[in-house]
C-alpha cells in the first residue's frame, strides 16, 4: 500500500506542472471570456437603447436581466474552449503516462520495472493519478463557477446582469452537466465508466508495448470487441431489452457486463505488465 501511494505521489509530481498550467489556462480563459461577454452584451444593449431612443431601465423591463447561465451560453467557445483543452490534454496523457517511460536516451521504464514492488502497483498508481487529475480539474471548475458568478456581477453590475444558482446553471448546460452530473450517484456512474475507458486504453497501450505491431492490431480489435460485448443485450435479435426485459434487469445485465469487462481488462493489463512487458 505504501509503495502504491508513493508511486501515485510520484506520478502526481511528474504531472503537476502541466496540471497547474491547465488550471491557470482554464482560470484565465474563463475569466477573460466572462469579462468579454459582459462588455459585449453591455455595448450591444447600449447600441440598441441609443438606436431606439430608449433607456436601459426600459430595456431591462422588456427583456429582463441577463443571468450568468445565459451569459455562459452566449460566451460559447470563449468559455468552453478551456474545458475542451483540459479534456484533450488529459485524454492524450492517458497514453502518454505510459509512453513517456520509453522516451529518451535512458528509458525510464528500466528503472521503473526494477523498483522492488509488485508491478500491479505501477499499473494502479497510473490509473489513480489519471483519475485524480481529472477530478482535480472538475473540482477546480466547481470552485471557479461561483467565483466567476461573482466576477460577472462585479464587472457587469446588477443593472443588466443577475447571478444564477450554480446547480441550475450546471443542470441547464449540456457540457457542464456532462462533466458534473446532477446527482452523486450519476457522478459515480459517469466517472466509473470513465475509469473503465481509461483501463481499456491502458490495456491497448500495454498490448502494443508487449507485442509491438501485432499488439497494435490486437488493441484495435480489443476496443470494438469490448463495445460489442457491452452491447450484447441490444444486439440480440428481437430487441429483447425492450420486448422481454424489465428496466432493472437490463440495467443489472449492463452492470454485470461492465464488471466483466473491467475485471478482464484489469486482469489482461496486469498480466501484460507483469509477464509480457519487457525492455
Amino acid at each position, binding site marked *: 500500500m505504501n509503495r502504491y*501511494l508513493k508511486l*501515485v*505521489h510520484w506520478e*502526481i*509530481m511528474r504531472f*503537476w506542472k502541466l496540471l497547474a498550467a491547465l488550471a491557470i489556462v482554464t482560470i484565465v480563459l474563463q475569466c477573460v471570456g466572462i469579462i468579454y461577454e459582459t462588455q459585449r452584451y453591455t455595448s450591444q444593449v447600449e447600441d440598441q437603447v441609443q438606436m431606439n431612443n430608449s433607456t436601459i431601465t426600459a430595456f431591462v423591463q422588456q427583456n429582463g436581466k441577463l*443571468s450568468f*447561465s*445565459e451569459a455562459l451560453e452566449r460566451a460559447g467557445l470563449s468559455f468552453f474552449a478551456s474545458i475542451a483543452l483540459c479534456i484533450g490534454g488529459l485524454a492524450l496523457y492517458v497514453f502518454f503516462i505510459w509512453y513517456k517511460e520509453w522516451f529518451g536516451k535512458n528509458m525510464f521504464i528500466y528503472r521503473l520495472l526494477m523498483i522492488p514492488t509488485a508491478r500491479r502497483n505501477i499499473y494502479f498508481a497510473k490509473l489513480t493519478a489519471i483519475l*485524480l487529475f481529472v*477530478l*482535480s480539474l*472538475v*473540482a*477546480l471548475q*466547481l*470552485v471557479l463557477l461561483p467565483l466567476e458568478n461573482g466576477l460577472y456581477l462585479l464587472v457587469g453590475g446588477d443593472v443588466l446582469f443577475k447571478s*444564477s*444558482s*450554480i*446547480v*441550475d*446553471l450546471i*443542470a*441547464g448546460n449540456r457540457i457542464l452537466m456532462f462533466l*458534473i*452530473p*446532477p*446527482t*452523486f*450517484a*450519476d*457522478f459515480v*456512474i459517469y466517472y466509473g465508466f470513465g475509469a473503465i475507458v481509461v483501463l481499456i486504453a491502458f490495456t491497448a497501450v500495454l498490448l502494443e508495448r508487449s507485442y509491438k505491431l501485432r499488439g497494435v492490431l490486437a488493441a484495435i480489435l480489443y476496443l470494438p470487441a469490448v463495445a460489442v460485448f457491452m452491447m450484447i443485450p441490444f444486439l440480440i435479435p428481437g430487441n429483447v431489452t*425492450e*420486448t*422481454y*426485459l*424489465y*428496466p*432493472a434487469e437490463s*440495467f443489472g445485465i449492463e452492470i454485470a457486463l461492465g464488471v466483466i469487462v473491467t475485471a478482464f481488462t484489469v486482469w489482461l493489463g496486469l498480466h501484460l505488465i507483469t509477464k509480457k512487458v519487457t525492455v
Partner: protein
Amino acid sequence: MKKYWLSIGLSVFIAASIGTYYIGAATRELPEYRMQTVEGDGKEASHLFLEGSVSRDKMIDQIKIGDGGTAYESRMSTIGKMFDSEYADRNPELAGLIKDHKGFMRGKKSYNGFYKDERQLVYAVTKSDGKTSDDGLHRYSLAVSALDLKSGKEKQFKAAMLGKQRYASMYVIDVQSGEDGIKVLVQLDKKPEVYKNGNYRFESELHVLTVNMDKEGISDDQTIGADSGADSGKMERYSVPYGGGIELASPSSYALVYKTVVKIAKDQDGNEMEQQVGSEIFAYDYANGKLTPILAGSGSDSGVYRSLAGNAMITMAMKGNALSIGKLELAKNKESLQFEIPMSLKNITIDNTQFFIYQSKLYMYVHAGADHEILVVSLTDGKVLYQGKATVDGTADEQKERLTGLNVYGFYFAS
C-alpha cells in the same frame, strides 16, 4: 509527510469541492408544491400524481406532485429516471398485474391487449407475417397468452386470421371474455389512398375475433364496422374512442363504437377534403354480438367527452361554469344518473381538463392561470368526494408566479 503535501492537498481539494457541491445540491431548498384538500376526504387523492414542468432561471425542471410533496427530476439519478419512465407504473391495473404476475407480464407492452377475471389473465397482440411486401400489405395473426390464475399454468399460441385478406396494419383495441371464447376487438387498416392534396385517406374495419382457447384458434370473425362509400363522395367511418378509461384489463360487457359520416368535398383549388356531416354512437354487446345505437346524442359533439366505465357510458361536458356528468346504463340504454358540479374555476372548457375513470370514480384536473383544481367524483351517486388545489410555498407573489409557471401534462393514479 511534508513532501507529500501536494498529493494530500490535491485529494483534500477534490473531496472538499465535489463533496460540498453534491451536499449543497441535495439539500438546497426548492419550491415545494402540494395538493391541498379544499373539501372532502384527503385520502381520495392519496394515490394521485400531477406530473409537469416548472422553470427556474430559464431552466426547465420536471416535477411530480403527490401525497408526499414534490419530487424534482433534477434530483433524480439517471437510474432513478430510467425506472421512473415506465408507462405501466402510471396505470394502477398494469402496475398491479406486473407486481402479481411478473413472469407472465414480461415483454407484454400492448396495453390494450389485457383481460383479467377471477379465473384467467389473457393477453392478445397482433403479429404481421414480417415478409417484405411491395404493396405494404401483410397477413396478420393473433399471438395469445393466457395464465390460469388457479393452477398457474400458462398457454401461448398464435391464431391465424380466418380468410386470406391482407392489411396495412392491425391492432388490438380491447380484449374481453365471452361464452364461446375470448373476444378480441381489433382495428384493421387497408392500404391508405392519397388525396390530391397529399393527405392520406385511411379505410379501416372493426372486427371482433372469437378465440377458442381449447382449440387454440380463431373460431369466428365478425365485422362490426367497415369504412365505406368513398366512391359516392360520402364516407362512413368507424372508430373506437379513447375516453379516459384506465381499467385496461377489467371485464366489461360492452365496447363503444363511433360512426361518423364525412363528405368528401373539393376546395377552390380542387383539393379533396373531408367534412363531417353526421355521427352516431353505438354500444357493442360482446354477449350477443349486436351493435345498438345509443340514445344519448350523436357521436362526436364537440365539447362532449364519452367514456366507457364498466357497463355504463359516462358523458361529460361543461355547462357554463359547471361540469355536467351523465351516466347511461348500456344494458338498458337508459340514463341512470345526471348531475352537475359547480367548478371553482370559471370559463374553462372540457378540452382544458385531464381526466380518467377508475373504480367508478371520475378523477379530474383542470387549470386556469395560477389555479390548479383537482376533483374526485363518485359515479355511483354523483357526490364530490374530494376537491383540492395545487399550492406552493413562498410569498403571495412567488406563489402566483410559481403556480402560473406550473405546466401539468400528466395526471394519474399510482397504486
